[in-house]
């Protein structure tokens, strides 16, 4: 094969390549870069098979068919596909360019620069393979970044992956791609906007901070909740890139916190936690909304919202735990009920709202959600209500090992304070031999915490099984646990002790050693009765080789040498023999024993002590030498030892307090449950302390949401100021009644709450006009088949809504096609939960074949998201939904031609959307144009001169943003321009208008 004739058949080679791949697909051809990702390291292997492949490839240039029938066994392919593939591509490309010293990255570069989509995609897949393996692919940046504007979605996505990974390293080149994203941010498709924002904000290049800021601000006002969610994520990314943007970002957070979409809520709370967790004031107004939305928020959002609200509640409400024994409670094991309480405690209705709305989430399939509700109840609920979380937590123990680990840790902390909570479920903590060691240890911990006089015998029987476990670390832990039970419950101390003594004759060393250590601790608590046990241990001493256990026995001998006067000196004698061979810890205790015996029984042990002290003096370890010197000075009187000698007895044989056998989880309650900090038992970065309950509750009225009757004369600032005052007034005066009607209150407030309509504040140039009449399209709301006879149709009457200016008026025609009368027709639950609907009055009775027209108002918040609600009769409920057309979300506005041009001038650039429309011939007259436009959108005609320019003006119903439509006729086509800050609406409207004008 010569280099000269290669280019002409280049595409053929690629085809062969593709074909080969499809043939070998089922023998796991490594198309995804797994072979090439190993990069140069494969080169020798590749080159080895290079020659053999070379011949295969060179033969079939003429005929494809015998490519792999040139004598190579397919099995060899299978075995060596990696090498073959690497070699093949290596070979192809190295022959194509310079023959030697070409890395596989070089090949990729050329594939990326080719003009074949499939080749580019293939190359990108391999590049992603490299990234996935953590290999460096940064040198391909220029080649990759060129493909950022590709039409192929997958290619584009892979380029995005690459960009996010390497933009930081190649800042200058990364900037080349920015304009693509800026363009994409204006796309009509919400997913494209969202993914553009995701990538743009992930490019960690500080030069583009202003661009990111602008994009975030815009996206946070986007019509699509999905884009707004992405904006919330972008806030955190920008904050970590440039913390100086904090103030501006907080503004965006504040705006997004008001968002009613369940999709956004979780993400914005994450942003809040990261950027400004201390700005509790931002939460006040949204508190009730968040509580009410919670059930419908996606599961991950629920977790973050619940833990944020837990912290919030601890700063805003007073303690539901009885004040006077709250401290005592922490120490006590059972809940104490104080019947004679001086000041009756009433729970803040908002506090109750939170508890009530989180409770259903205990049934979530997501373990993290269940845990977060459990911790919320633990930290916020009155003590007698906490028990409801128990069952759910126990249920989680069926889940994966890792879930069990975390849940058990939390139960361990909880069970220290409140045995009663988990005692009925004690058996759920029984250990199985197949459990992982850390799970076993945690279960043991909990069982120990749960032990009381009543169940101790059951628990001890269970422990006996565990002691025999093959997992010796676990057996040792069980012995520790038995020791703890013995100290905690005095009734069983003796039983435990004798049980432990039996274990001393166990074959396993670790078990024996652990028993000795535990017995030592137990004996310290009540040494008088137990000289037998000490004797027994002395007997076993020879057989015990674990140094910790030997040291413990020696210490016991020394401490209670007066109770075993005959044995102790003998033990010392034995130790003198083996002293040099012992571990340091044993040596130290031997020195101790010697000293104590010298003081109590110097007649028998003087020489032994001298001998041991001499051995210690020349020991290798300086600790031992040091100790020996100290002890000698202390006990042997000479002129240098001075006054200390007199006190030697008191120093060495002072009564020592018994050690406490405590749970390792004793102090874990300083951390909020369910947190990482709790799990690792140290403060994790970014951990936020749970504050103590305030002694006096802060002003509750801060959470009241404005109740403002729409009054047209007020400006925005005035209205909100005033509403704050009025609502806080009402909060104070009617606090009693508020408590009693806590449930209905937030909802009522929401219902009456109005969107602050900025239309009055902004331009006075335009005023709302009478409706424009177009043809009325009727849509079906409920079919009589599904509605069991009840049918409903709706249309938009294009009248200003009577109830609230921000609502779109909807007329519903209800008909009864069944053979019996329907009663009590009304509107039930609605979703999204925050949906603002003005319902029609309940229709008491609808006779068969009768129909009735009712009007409703719905606040769509300028989005085409459907309003879902339930249409209820006395017996049934039907879920229905009203899907608004974008044109119906507008109301006409009159303005002069001059005003129109003036306003249009202000809405240029990003706020302008335009398209050329192919006009149907029937539509060229100005009357027809108006008719078509009005049929699509509820806008007003702007009177203008007799030219070919038609203008229409309207405002969005909810926010009052101007929407200007202009149409310039040019023979068979027309230029349609829409100017509005609601870019999404603009693009949707444009689409609808285009359709209407192109049809007849």
């Amino acid at each position, binding site marked *: 094969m010569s280099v000269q004739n290669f280019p002409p058949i280049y595409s053929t080679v690629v085809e062969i390549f*593709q074909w080969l791949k499809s043939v070998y*697909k*089922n023998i*796991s051809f490594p198309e*995804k*870069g*797994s072979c090439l990702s190993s990069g140069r390291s494969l080169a020798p292997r590749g080159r080895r098979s290079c020659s053999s492949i070379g011949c295969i490839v060179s033969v079939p240039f003429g005929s494809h068919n015998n490519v792999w029938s040139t004598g190579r066994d397919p099995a060899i392919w299978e075995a060596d596909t990696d090498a073959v593939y690497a070699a093949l591509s290596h070979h192809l490309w190295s022959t194509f360019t310079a023959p030697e010293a070409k890395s596989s990255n070089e090949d990729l570069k050329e594939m990326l620069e080719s003009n074949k*989509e499939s080749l580019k*995609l293939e190359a990108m897949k391999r590049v992603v393979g490299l990234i*996935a393996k953590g290999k460096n692919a940064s040198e391909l940046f220029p080649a990759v970044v060129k493909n950022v504007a590709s039409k192929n*979605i997958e*290619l584009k*996505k892979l380029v*995005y*992956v690459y960009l996010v990974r390497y933009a930081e390293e190649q800042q200058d080149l990364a900037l080349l791609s920015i304009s693509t994203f800026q363009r994409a941010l204006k796309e009509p*498709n*919400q997913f494209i906007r969202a993914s553009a924002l995701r990538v743009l904000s*992930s490019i*960690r290049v500080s030069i583009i901070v202003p661009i990111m800021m602008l994009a975030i601000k815009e996206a946070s006002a986007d019509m*699509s*909740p999905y884009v707004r969610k992405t904006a919330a*994520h972008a806030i*955190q*990314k920008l904050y970590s890139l440039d913390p100086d943007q904090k103030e501006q970002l907080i503004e965006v957070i504040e705006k997004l916190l008001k968002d009613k979409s*369940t*999709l956004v809520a979780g*993400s914005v709370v994450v942003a809040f936690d990261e950027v400004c967790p201390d700005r509790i004031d931002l939460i006040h107004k949204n508190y009730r909304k968040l509580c009410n939305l919670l059930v*419908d928020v996606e*599961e*991950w959002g629920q*977790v973050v919202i619940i*833990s944020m609200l837990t912290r919030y509640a601890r700063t805003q409400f007073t303690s539901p735990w009885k004040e006077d024994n709250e401290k005592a409670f922490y120490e006590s094991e059972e809940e104490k009920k104080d019947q004679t309480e001086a000041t009756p405690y009433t729970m803040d209705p908002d506090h109750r709202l939170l508890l009530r709305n989180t409770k*259903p989430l205990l049934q979530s*399939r997501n*373990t*993290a959600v269940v845990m*977060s509700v459990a911790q919320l109840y633990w930290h916020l609920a009155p003590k007698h209500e906490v028990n409801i979380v128990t*069952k759910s937590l*126990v*249920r989680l123990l*069926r889940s*994966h090992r*890792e*879930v069990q*680990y*975390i*849940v058990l840790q939390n139960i361990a902390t909880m069970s220290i304070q409140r045995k009663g909570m988990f005692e009925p479920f004690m058996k*759920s903590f029984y250990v*199985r*031999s*197949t459990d*992982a*060691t*850390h799970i076993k240890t945690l279960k043991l911990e909990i069982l120990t915490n749960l032990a009381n006089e009543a169940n101790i015998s059951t628990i001890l029987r269970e422990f006996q099984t565990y002691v025999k476990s*093959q997992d010796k670390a676990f057996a040792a832990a069980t012995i520790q646990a038995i020791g703890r039970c013995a100290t905690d419950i005095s009734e069983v101390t003796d039983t435990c002790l004798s049980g432990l003594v039996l274990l001393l004759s166990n074959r396993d060393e670790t078990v024996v050693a652990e028993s000795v250590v535990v017995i030592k601790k137990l004996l310290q608590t009540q040494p008088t009765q137990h000289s037998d046990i000490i004797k027994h241990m002395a007997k076993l001493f020879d057989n015990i080789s674990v140094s910790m256990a030997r040291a413990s026995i020696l210490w016991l001998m020394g401490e209670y040498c007066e109770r075993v006067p005959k044995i102790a000196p003998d033990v010392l004698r034995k130790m003198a023999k083996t002293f040099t061979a012992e571990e340091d810890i044993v040596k130290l205790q031997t020195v101790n024993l010697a000293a104590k015996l010298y003081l109590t029984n110097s007649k028998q042990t003087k020489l032994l002590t001298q001998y041991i002290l001499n051995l210690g003096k020349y020991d290798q370890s300086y600790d031992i030498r040091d100790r020996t010197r100290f002890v000698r000075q202390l006990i042997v009187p000479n002129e240098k030892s001075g006054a200390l000698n007199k006190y030697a007895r008191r120093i060495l044989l002072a009564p020592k307090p018994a050690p406490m056998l405590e749970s390792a989880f004793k102090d874990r309650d300083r951390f909020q449950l*369910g*947190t*990482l*900090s709790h799990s690792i038992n140290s403060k994790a970065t970014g*951990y936020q302390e749970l504050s103590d309950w305030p002694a006096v509750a802060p002003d509750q009225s801060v959470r009241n949401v404005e109740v403002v009757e729409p009054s047209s004369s007020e400006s925005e600032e005035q209205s909100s100021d005033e509403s704050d005052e009025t609502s806080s007034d009402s909060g104070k005066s009617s606090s009693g009644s508020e408590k009693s009607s806590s449930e209905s209150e937030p909802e009522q407030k929401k219902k009456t709450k109005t969107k602050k309509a900025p239309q009055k504040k902004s331009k006075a140039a335009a005023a709302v006009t009478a409706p424009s009449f177009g043809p009325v399209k009727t849509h079906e709301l409920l079919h009589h088949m599904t509605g069991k006879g009840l049918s409903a149709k709706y249309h938009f009457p294009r009248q200003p809504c009577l109830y609230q200016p921000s609502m779109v008026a909807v007329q519903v025609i209800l008909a009864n096609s069944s053979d019996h009368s329907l009663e009590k027709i009304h509107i039930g639950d609605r979703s999204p939960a925050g949906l603002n609907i003005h319902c029609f009055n309940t229709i008491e009775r609808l006779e068969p074949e009768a129909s009735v027209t009712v009007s409703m108002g719905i606040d769509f918040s300028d989005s085409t998201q459907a309003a879902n609600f339930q249409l209820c009769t006395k017996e049934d409920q039907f879920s229905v939904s009203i899907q608004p057309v974008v044109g119906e979300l507008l109301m006409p506005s009159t303005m002069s031609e001059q005003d129109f041009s003036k306003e249009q001038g202000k809405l240029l650039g990003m706020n302008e959307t335009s398209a050329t429309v192919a006009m149907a011939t029937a539509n060229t007259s100005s009357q027809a144009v108006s008719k078509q436009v009005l049929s699509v959108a509820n806008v007003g005609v702007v009177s203008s001169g007799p030219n070919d320019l038609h203008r229409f003006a309207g405002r969005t119903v909810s926010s009052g943003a101007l929407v200007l439509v202009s149409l310039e006729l040019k023979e068979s086509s027309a230029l349609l321009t829409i100017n509005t800050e609601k870019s999404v609406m603009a693009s949707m409207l444009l689409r609808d208008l285009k359709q209407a004008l192109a049809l007849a």
Partner: protein
Amino acid sequence: MIHSLFLINHSGDIFLEKHWKSVISHSVCDYFFEAKEKAVDPEDVPPVLQTPHHYLITVHRGKLFFLSVVQTEVPPLFVIEFLHRVADTFQDYFGECSESVIKDNVVTVYELLEEMLDNGFPLATESNVLKELIRPPTILRSVVNTLTGSSNVGDTLPTGQLSTIPWRRADVKYTNNEAYFDVIEEIDAILDKSGTTVFAEIQALCFSSHNPRLLDDVSFHPCVRFKRWESERTLSFIPPDGNFTLMNYHVSSQNPVAIPVYVKQSISFFESGPCGRLDITIGPKQTMGKTVEALMVKIHMPKAVLSANLTATQGNYTYDLPNKVLVWDIGKLNPQKLPNLKGILSLQAGAPKPEDNPSLNIDLRIQQVAISGLKVSRLEMFGEKYKPFKGVKYVTKAGKFQVRT
């Protein structure tokens, strides 16, 4: 939230890494490897590890470790739950969650991870939504893709994300609709030496409609309308497309649980010689008149056991020497002729007699009965004009069923 993810196999190779924020060097995994060295069994590696600058939260699935790096405070269960969701998604997409499969589909895996998290916070985790964004690979599709140069990325954009029911795609239409309900109950129990029940409870997946008093604790798929359940004890839901777990319930240890089999066993090791004796018989107890199938006994033997020379009256036994696991696969339980396994265990010479007798883990299945007595009493479907096919199947299985000896 979640900063980076590393996939690690049992031999300690990092074969995939993904970063959602800045790049973290894979040397951070060394702390994990250290902990893994210390642990006897991979299951024993602690799920949460602390390093000087990061926190490592690990999940062990199949033979893989999903190691995530976290830099700030985050509920550990949040991460753990998410990692399991990732593993579930791989399972769903590729049929299994193993190293080779992930390596083969590395691009799809990467695309999935990209969609599942944004800035470390979960974005799309519902399988129905993900499948619209990224189509799962099939052999046919990959062949077609190679030939035509098309891809796995969906060309229509999903709608589920935006609807109020994120678990269902919009406009799913089939020519025939079928609804199958599998009620799978699992008995968790610990029996002691004498056959007394130490602890037993029933765990179940899926579906129920009545007899709710029995149900101690339930958890639901998000599609279930909780209010309806609370007021009427009826499960009302809009189902996702495909298989899903509707509900989990739990009948706690305080209610009496029928134990379907009894076990008579004696395992003893002789003080004198290097051998022991094993004798196990299994018989039916409370089986509700049904046959016990797929009966299997698994015993983790003490380390000293070298080989087993046994005779089984029914089924086969195998002894896996490296893992010291004796498996006796019995199959159907015949009440007339009880299966028995008897013989000699030989021990390593010189090794001390094992302290503890190994416990038996029992696996079984009973078709067509839910041991809790739970029944699906009624199944109604609304919103469809024709009559879809409906079916309910009951299975009782052994969950963590252990007999101590």
